[in-house]
């Protein structure tokens, strides 16, 4: 089986879904002739035409708002936002409309849109090109939030996101776009939303992570008996897989590159405190970025949780 990187995997998921379903259209800035700033949509304009692979005006609010209108009419729009920090203008469209239309119309309408965007530090980008603010979207009822960590799960998760009836924010770890390759089956397969994957079995610590940090978490496990879980869907997350693991290990470390305060790690900590207290042998530890604004290139390595920091958390829960 041929290996592929994350960019190829997402490209193939988009192409296969466009092939399968004529209603799938792509909207974004520079996604056509240029193939996207990360080349994720390269070749799709040539294959599917300018009516389905649309270079839009520079207009994040307009794109997401138009996607909502297209979805009401019956299309399945997939919007690309160039960098996560540029999505903020469109948050009102996601929160006040896409997330609510099913509820506001008591089931008559839905907004099955996908908003894809690269997130995270690690590419030495300019200011406001490295945000990781997934928790904001997780807080909004009606929105699903998905983060792939490998080319393999990126393809399966994105296909599920496109087929989902609810709006999905699909966060692509920009650091991983071209740095890892996995085997990528040619055939159609999906990974269900709301399903977490146990990527390494272990008995003493449950480490939960996603996206870029999943790989750092894996690196940090040497010498510890860690079960590593790739959360994949941050909302709704897979409660069963998490509970089964913590019942076995009794110790939990959550690793994410977003800041800790009100981060997804906080929600997971509360979840374990509410539903697994009697199984816990130590406090739930979080390894996160410090509560500061994402730095520019020179300081970004100090911002992102390091392997050492993760190992210290493992030591701490083991010695508690």
């Amino acid at each position: 089986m041929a290996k592929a990187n994350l960019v190829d995997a997402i490209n193939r998921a988009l192409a296969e879904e466009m092939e399968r379903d004529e209603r799938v259209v792509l909207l974004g800035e520079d996604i056509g002739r240029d193939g996207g700033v990360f080349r994720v949509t390269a070749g799709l304009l040539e294959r599917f035409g300018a009516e389905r692979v649309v270079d839009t005006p520079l207009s994040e609010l307009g794109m997401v708002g138009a996607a909502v209108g297209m979805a009401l009419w019956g299309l399945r729009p997939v919007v690309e936002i160039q960098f996560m920090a540029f999505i903020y203008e469109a948050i009102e469209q996601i929160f006040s409309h896409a997330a609510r239309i099913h509820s506001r119309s008591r089931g008559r309408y839905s907004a099955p849109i996908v908003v894809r965007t690269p997130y995270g530090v690690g590419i030495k980008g300019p200011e406001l090109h490295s945000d990781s603010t997934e928790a904001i979207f997780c807080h909004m009822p009606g929105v699903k939030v998905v983060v792939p960590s490998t080319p393999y799960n990126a393809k399966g998760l994105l296909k599920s996101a496109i087929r989902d009836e609810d709006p999905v924010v699909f966060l692509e770890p920009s650091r991983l776009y071209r740095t890892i390759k996995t085997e990528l089956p040619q055939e159609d397969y999906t990974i269900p939303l709301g399903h977490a994957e146990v990527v390494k079995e272990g008995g003493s610590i449950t480490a939960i992570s996603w996206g870029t940090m999943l790989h750092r978490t894996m690196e940090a496990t040497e010498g510890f008996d860690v079960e590593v879980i790739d959360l994949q869907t941050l909302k709704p997350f897979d409660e069963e897989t998490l509970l089964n693991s913590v019942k076995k290990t009794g110790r939990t470390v959550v690793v994410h590159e977003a800041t800790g305060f009100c981060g997804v790690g906080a929600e997971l900590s509360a979840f374990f405190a509410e539903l697994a207290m009697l199984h816990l042998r130590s406090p739930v530890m979080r390894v996160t970025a410090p509560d500061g604004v994402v730095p520019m290139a020179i300081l970004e390595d100090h911002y992102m949780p390091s392997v050492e920091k993760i190992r210290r958390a493992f030591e701490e829960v083991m010695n508690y």
Partner: protein
Amino acid sequence: MPYRVIDSFEVRYLQIVDEAGNLDESLFDGFSEWLVRSFFERLVLSRTFNSRCLSLQREGRIGTYPSIYGQEASQVGSALALDAKDWVFPTFRESGVLAALGYPMELLLRYWMGDERGMKIPHGMNIVPMSIPVGTHIPHATGCGWAMRLEGARAAALCYFGDGGSSRGDFHEGLNMAGVFKANTVFLCQNNQWAISVPRTRQTASRTIAQKAFSYGFEGIQVDGNDIFAVYRATLDALNRAKRGEGPTLIECFTYRLDDHTTADDASRYRDPGEVEEWKKREPLLRLRLVMQRMGLWTEDYEKEVVKHSEEVVDSAIEKAEAVSPPEPSDILIYTSHTPSGRQRRELKEL
């Protein structure tokens, strides 16, 4: 080199019937007796519904309600230009549009009572739940009209908003994109002169809202929004152009909000009562009545009959709305997502 003019624009204004009932014969075309009676009957119905809502609010039977008094011609005239295949994107101040389109009044009343089921749009009606955050639905109409164009549908999207909404970024991005992609969309701005307490002159320094369309590459027109004939004509023409693939239009209906912003507002704090009195002389029913008299379509008995019928329709809707049992608490959760989370499933048990 001297400066050269490389482009110039004219803002057109359409009025078919003036306040005194004088009409332009050349433009007064295609208004059948049936259509004119429909204008009158729907206008009276929407006004009756509106005044009943104001009373119901005072009696504590519905919550805060935004009056349409004064704007009925803009609402009814434009709504009657729609086809069944067209889509409508209303704001919260669109009782007249909904009444004219035959939206079940008991549902609208339920909504104002605080029941979300009131915005469960019946199947077969392409109306989107009213937008509460001002102007934010404008890009939806762009997307919908754009999708219609992509699929070659002979349909258009009609988007309502006000002068306040035209100040939002959503207005710019929505209209800009509609121009670029020639969406089958008609943008209808009811310039009622006031966004709560802020006058139109504080929304924009441009002389009209209609002229903003030129910067997006399509036609903009200002219409006497209290002249139901002009509103109908302009909307129908714009919808037809959209359906022929000729792109969007911005219609500015120049009208006036005769009542407070909502029942929670007191316009006397910021508005000269003299201005309101002046506009009352221009309210839309007066001149419609004059035209109908001239056409031999109006008698006192006819109007009494229409008013009586409208009151019966609205009263029966009120009766129906008030007889409905409250929604189940579980409704808070069951429509949030197509696939509930574990947390939502636990919370459902507690509701």
